């Protein structure tokens, strides 16, 4: 009895500490918003409401369904404080080491959540394409953002998204006008640099493609050194009719980083979204991918590869909501786990009553390489329409001894053989990344991690 009472008291204390911490993070920003003038009244109101939501919401515990397998304890214990100033000391030479060799792209760089003019190398952008700082745009042209920014993420129940809305300062904006065509990919580097105190950056990004626009975006989350920090980012994506977006996201943060991303996608009729998520870094990484359709015949293709090694937790939550007929969605995620790595996959495909002729398929396949790794997977279907084709599949397994034997019998060392088989498993997802330079780079990154992995 006393042990139970004790643990419940501890829980209450933890919840209070967490609530205090959240309010600290959201409150400071509200002041920031009101100080920036009257042109963005709507934005100030949004922030205010988001801050209210953060205050009103119960602190997630192990009993909250969406945090069932992902404890917040380690995040709270860090006592992260808000990043308040931008870092301008970096020069282009400093980021040389983190670039993808041979990648030909327009480059936008954000440092600790703030857009950096000095480090970005946008080159010549085609007509109808705008790339820049969110903060700058809020100051200069807030009307272009009204009705888009914060509207795609909506007033969802996600605590960290609300926190981000309340506290956002800067981020990346990419706007493509109707029919605009971005031929070269645009690379967005989210660079994090460690500060003396552990900091949390809360950038807000917006990518909006007008009707028939086409683009390829490569986002990379990277760090300088083994810094300890937290990123709580929200990315809002809007695709107009017939728009096409190829979106690669590579998360390769420092082994001490905490990473939270909410990606909110809104797709109009006939639009096509192809997203590839690579999760390699961080000690605690949570990604929520949320898709809504606003027109028929839209296609959403989400793929992912995650590697979780020692002391790493990688969590992907997916919420694909079919509210209209004739749309299709694909989710294909693969994971490799080693050491004491943990992975969580929670995918939901929701098909509303009117969403007839929905075609949805979800798969999650996991390779466990060590005795202490763990995977918790929960692929869910919630279907209220009858004329649909929906499926999901999950597997958890290990490298087949026969395959290993085959390679070893040809003189290949056990560790190399394992690496080859893992890369073969991962290859299918890496292939979907687009530019060859990026594919080679990610293959190398995955290979390096597997080489360092203590495979038993």
């Amino acid at each position, binding site marked *: 009895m006393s042990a139970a009472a004790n643990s419940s008291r501890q829980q209450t204390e933890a919840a209070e500490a967490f609530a205090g911490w959240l309010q600290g993070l959201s409150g400071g920003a509200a002041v920031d918003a009101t100080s920036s003038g009257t042109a963005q009244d709507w934005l100030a109101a949004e922030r205010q409401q988001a801050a209210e939501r953060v205050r009103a919401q119960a602190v997630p515990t192990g009993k909250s369904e969406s945090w069932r397998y992902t404890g917040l304890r380690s995040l709270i214990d860090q006592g992260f404080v808000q990043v308040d100033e931008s870092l301008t000391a970096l020069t282009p030479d400093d980021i040389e080491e983190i670039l993808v060799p041979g990648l030909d792209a327009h480059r936008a760089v954000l440092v600790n959540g703030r857009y950096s003019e000095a480090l970005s190398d946008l080159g010549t952008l085609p007509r109808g394409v705008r790339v820049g700082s969110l903060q700058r745009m809020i100051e200069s042209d807030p009307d272009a953002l009204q009705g888009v920014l914060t509207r795609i993420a909506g007033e969802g129940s996600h605590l960290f998204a609300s926190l981000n809305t309340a506290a956002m300062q800067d981020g990346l904006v990419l706007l493509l006008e109707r029919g605009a065509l971005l031929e070269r990919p645009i690379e967005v580097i989210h660079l994090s640099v460690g500060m003396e105190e552990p900091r949390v950056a809360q950038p807000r990004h917006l990518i909006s493609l007008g009707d028939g626009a086409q683009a390829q975006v490569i986002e990379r989350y990277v760090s300088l050194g083994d810094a300890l920090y937290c990123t709580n980012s929200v990315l809002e994506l809007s695709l107009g009719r017939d728009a096409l977006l190829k979106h690669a996201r590579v998360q390769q943060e420092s082994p001490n980083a905490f990473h939270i991303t909410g990606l909110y996608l809104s797709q109009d009729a006939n639009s096509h979204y192809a997203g590839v998520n690579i999760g390699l870094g961080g000690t605690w990484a949570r990604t929520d991918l949320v898709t809504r359709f606003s027109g028929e015949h839209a296609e959403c293709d989400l793929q992912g590869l995650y590697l979780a090694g020692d002391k790493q937790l990688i969590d992907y939550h997916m919420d694909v909501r079919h509210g209209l007929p004739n749309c299709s969605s694909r989710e294909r995620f693969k994971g490799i786990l080693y050491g004491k790595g943990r992975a969580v996959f929670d995918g939901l495909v929701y098909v509303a009553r009117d969403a*007839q002729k929905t075609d949805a398929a979800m798969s999650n396949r996991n390779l466990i390489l060590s005795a202490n790794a763990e995977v918790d997977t929960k692929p869910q279907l919630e279907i209220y329409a009858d004329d649909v084709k929906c499926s999901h599949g999950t597997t958890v397994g290990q490298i087949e001894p026969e395959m290993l034997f085959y390679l070893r019998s040809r003189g290949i060392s056990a560790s190399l053989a394992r690496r080859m088989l893992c890369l073969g498993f991962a290859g299918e997802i890496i292939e979907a990344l687009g530019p060859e330079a990026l594919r080679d780079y990610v293959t190398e990154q995955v290979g390096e991690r597997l080489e360092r992995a203590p495979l038993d």
Partner: protein
Amino acid sequence: MSAIPAEAITAESKADTVGQYDDLVNAGYEHGFVTEIESDTLPPGLDEGVVRAISARKGEPEWMTEWRLAAYRKWLDMPTPTWAAVHYPPIDYQAISYFSAPKKKEGPKSLDEVDPILLETYQKLGIPIEEQKALAGIAVDAVFDSVSVATTFREKLHEAGVIFCSISEAVQEYPELVQKYLGTVVPPTDNFYTGLNSAVFTDGTFVYVPKNTRCPMELSTYFRINTANTGQFERTLIVADEGSYVSYLEGCTAPQRDENQLHAAVVELIALDDAEIKYSTVQNWYPGDEDGKGGIYNFVTKRGDCRGHRSKISWTQVETGSAITWKYPSCILRGDDSVGEFYSVAVTKGRQQADTGTKMIHLGKNTSSTIVSKGISAQHGQQAYRGLVRIAARAEGARNHTQCDSLLIGDKSSAHTFPYIEVKNSSAKMEHEATTSKISDDQLFYCRSRGLSEEDAVSMIVNGFCKEVFNELPMEFAVEAQKLLSISLEGAVG
């Protein structure tokens, strides 16, 4: 409360002659009639006094009363589960009468002593006990409401050393076995309904199969819910000792009623070394009328414990009835090389809701489990598969295969799948597959072009869809289940 068999018969014959399935759906519930019989019923309400009264009426020993009271006290603090995808108005647990026994003088020793009205009821249901005797050696422990009134084949089982009796009898006659095993698989504190059941269970079945014994016949209990406003709290405990085998069949029908009836049973299975238990259920309780009014609430906790090495527990269920089903027959695979199986067909139509599935908890080495779940949703039927496969860190070489398919008929029906998969061991192999679709036009067209009526075609396709599960049922049950399925889906198509 008058006997209205005439109505049921009319409905049936109408169905036969009209032959159009639109009319069939209105045929009503075939088994809806009420037997007038004097019941010894406690007034509605629940407190410690009621728990003591139930225990006293059953003449239970002190330890049993205490066990009930402990469960009751814990239950008071337990919350009602709300996570399932089912919707119903809150239940007033004080409005339920917790005990109802057909009046009896002495415990009947043969069928002659059984109240003839009861026997007639079984005949109406098409399960006359006399015929059951002859039929493939099935012993029937007929549970009418809460007290066992007829038990057959006792002697034959006695020869084999198999104990097959009501749980109240077992409490009296085999207290050491009951004390040793009761509540060890499903503790009273497991959930809200097990707490309630542990406090107020009135009767149920006890089976003990001794070492190295193969039970000579399939054991079977037919449940009936009778007497308005009586919740039924059955308790089943089956223990298969080392090297033994038993197959148990459970089948249910219930009379038509206007008020919702709560059924919160607990079933515990224990398989020791090399033992095997096969548990089959055909559930066809009253699902309520077209608006979903009056059906049974079926909140059941079923769990098997493969306690011994190389033991096996297999659940097979065909669920076509009840307004709401909340049921997760599970297996704890504790012994090394133990095997758990779950085969399920669930049909929801009208306003029926079902949240069902299984849990396979792998603890022992080289344990394996198979889950095959087939859901069919028609009209406004709602259905969810909710399953957990957990492979513990020490469960080396665990293996799981899960397949859950849903078939949707009509655009108001729904089907959900919520699988939880937790793997903490690298040598585990698990696969999960799920699909949701409707009967394709191509399939239908193919059958129609070969001269089958739409209804026959659908029936054939659905039977094919469920075949994997029906194959697991004992012969007699398989036939009954197929029949039940076609009857259930009549009128739901088109």
